[in-house]
């Protein structure tokens, strides 16, 4: 094979490989991704065995600490209104976790309850970051 042709073959092979890998990456990202939903959307369309990324605010009076480091609380839409989603959570609780704070947690439906993936809780910005007056409700 002459050098020019060899280079062409090399180029085609490596480009094909790159396209295949990128395709695989893109395919898996869509199949492995979790939908990001609000509590109202989650209640409307959650299916058993799929996991979702749920974003909502902690409902007042819903937080209970159970033995074994289990946390039981409900999340509601940030805008208010709608039904709250009860969540069972184990794992590290970020410091800003509080009633009225917005947080993100990965949940899946088990029967009527939603069980969170252990350690998946992320709290969004504490209210102090925003220039608006403090909106703490505790």
């Amino acid at each position, binding site marked *: 094979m002459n050098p020019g042709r060899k280079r062409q073959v090399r180029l085609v092979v490596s480009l094909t490989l790159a396209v295949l890998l990128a395709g695989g990456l893109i395919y*898996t990202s*869509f199949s492995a991704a979790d939908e990001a939903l609000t509590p109202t959307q989650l209640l409307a369309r959650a299916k058993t065995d799929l996991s979702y990324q749920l974003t909502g605010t902690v409902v007042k009076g819903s937080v209970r600490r159970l*033995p074994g*480091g289990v946390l039981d609380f409900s999340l509601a839409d940030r805008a208010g209104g709608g039904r709250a989603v009860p969540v069972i959570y184990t794992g*590290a609780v*970020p410091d800003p976790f509080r009633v009225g704070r917005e947080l993100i947690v990965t949940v899946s439906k088990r029967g009527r309850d939603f069980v969170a993936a252990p350690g*998946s809780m*992320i709290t969004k910005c504490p209210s*102090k970051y925003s220039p608006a007056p403090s909106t703490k409700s*505790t």
Partner: protein
Amino acid sequence: MAVVGRAVLVVALLTTLFGITAALYGARHGRRDWVDAGRRSVYALAVILTVAFALLEVAFIDNDFAFNTVANDSSLTTPLFYRAAAMWGSQEGSLLLWVWLLSLWSSLAVFLTRNRLREVVPYAVSVLLGFGAFFTSLLVFFATPFGTTTPAPTNGVGLDPLLRNPSMMIHPPMLYSGYTFFTIPFAFAVGALITRRVDAEWIQVARRFALASWLFLGVGILLGARWAYSEIGWGGYWGWDAVENAALMPWLISTAFLHSIMIQEKRGMLKIWNASLVLAASTLAILGTFLVRSGILSSIHAFGASTLGIPFVVLIAVMVIGSIYLVVSRRDVLRSEHRLDSLFSREAAFMLNNVLLVGLTFVIFWGTFFPLISEVATGTQSVVGTPWFDRYTVPLALMLVLLSGIGPVIPWRRATLAKARRNFALPLVAAAAMLIASFTVLPISSSVPTVALFCCVAFVFASVGQEFWRGWRARRATSGDSPPRALISMVRRNRRRYGGYIVHVGLAVLFVGVAASSTFSRTQFVNLQKGQSTVVGGYKMTNVRPTAAIVTDPTSTGALLTLGVIMRVTHDGRYVTTLHPVAQYYDDETGGEGPVGSLIGGDSVSTLSLHSSFRRDISAAIDAPDIQSELQGEINHANTLVLDERSEGAVAQTKLSYYLLAAIAGGYVRHPPAAPLKLASSPLVMWLWLGALVVFAGGLIAIWPTAGVSGRVRARYLARVAHELGRA
């Protein structure tokens, strides 16, 4: 003072606009004096922004709550150290920090190139001032740090307790220095492409500053990881968070650039690729700033949605389109001088390393932006989690570690079989020995990626060690120096090479820590009553007794109440250590929960108590008890008691509030509820930090300028310039 501050920012903006015009005019008409005026504008910008920075800093230290930024991010109870750092807790303050650092580092770059690159510098100055103009106009028009309120509030909201960590003083400036340093190679690349002076000289400048940004950004990332590790709930040292990824992407691309640039220096190849990498790294750095500052993606760092999205998108679009145009229109001067001789050569190894690093960056980019991508593609936002990232990053990282052992020992141009045998025999033996050890001595055989990584690391140690040994032996033979002197002079004579090798070793050590701790950590969440114990990874941890302290805060972050537990750790009956995890409660300056309740009504923060050793970290953290609800009765009672004493005056009331808080704390210690604890035993975490230190030591060795070395480097560059002229 706020008026002065705003005026100073306007002057800064005018300075940048004047400097851009002067430098461009000087370049077009060949007027040195105008070019010099442009360069001096960069220095002037640095001086002006230093004044603005100092004004705001003084306002923070003096508790001048008339400034909105001070009122929002500082307070009377925020200790001095954190008041000084509170400036970059705010959007406006951090943008000011960004542009201030930009002006300082730009001045350094412009100063170092004052007698060089005559044609390129005017354009580079314009680009640097262009970034300066962008960020100053954000400060002038969109997010002024000098906004005021009259009458001034008597107290501020306070710096978020989560940010009251010594890292707050150093992590953001380091990270921002890294980001701003990236504008310098970008500016010089643009200048070189515009003037078609894509010779060896600009590459030298670009490489130096790319190395500086690589170093600063790396230190910034590691400090952030260390900080996240010490706070409960930030999910350990790395969580594939959008903002973490934003810093990692330009770092990876600049790593690729620092390697591929060597191919251009030695062989005149990959010029288009290198120019693209420089431009891409800087664009990703701006993108990183954008992600941190705009809150467009959900992140633990999300600093609130802001109005800065559109200006940033415009800037990034200009950078991307301009970069593509420049590279495409200058492709004729960017042609390669040589072709790849063999796939078994250092060039090929570096190219593979580049492909892997760019691939890794693409994976991270895709995952980071997936919420936006999926929203466009399917209409609903979706996210990918750590398992998805790990699936791609783990094999890519493994291959990169292996390559970091192959690169140093594979010859340029073409490796012969004999040479390969000579260079690879020892590293292969080391890797094989590690493989055997993994299944016999070391307890890691249950995790295939960890075994693979350990073998790659053994390979790297052996190959780099062999290079050091050979260079040292040769140096001793030729110079006749004593062994230690020969080692030092060997490194000094070729800092880049040996600095780079040290970086490789450091990264290998770092990955040992990452692999072991992420695979073999044991974590437990338990509620332990006083006297109860549990076993985590073979370590028995006992809740000895609760503790409480008011006002005196062991870490001086300004917490008014600190609750904790003393934990005793034993292993096989032998005493190991005593841990003291605490939760700290901060006051709520709005006073919404009554006189006593407000003392502890703000945020609470739990900090890890850590026992680090070479072999493992034992840690405990207490999940801050929700005293607001658990002690609601006591606090309400105390509130009424204080309010009943209204006649005694404000001082007596405050005093009484603290007494009652002390009584509540005392009651908590006498009748403690079960402590909600996070207990962990993680092997080899310390290797991660030690490896990082080695990486940065290597980076410093590589970047450190010395007269003799830079003279020789310049001679080599001159030789290349002459070579290029000869071809032209």
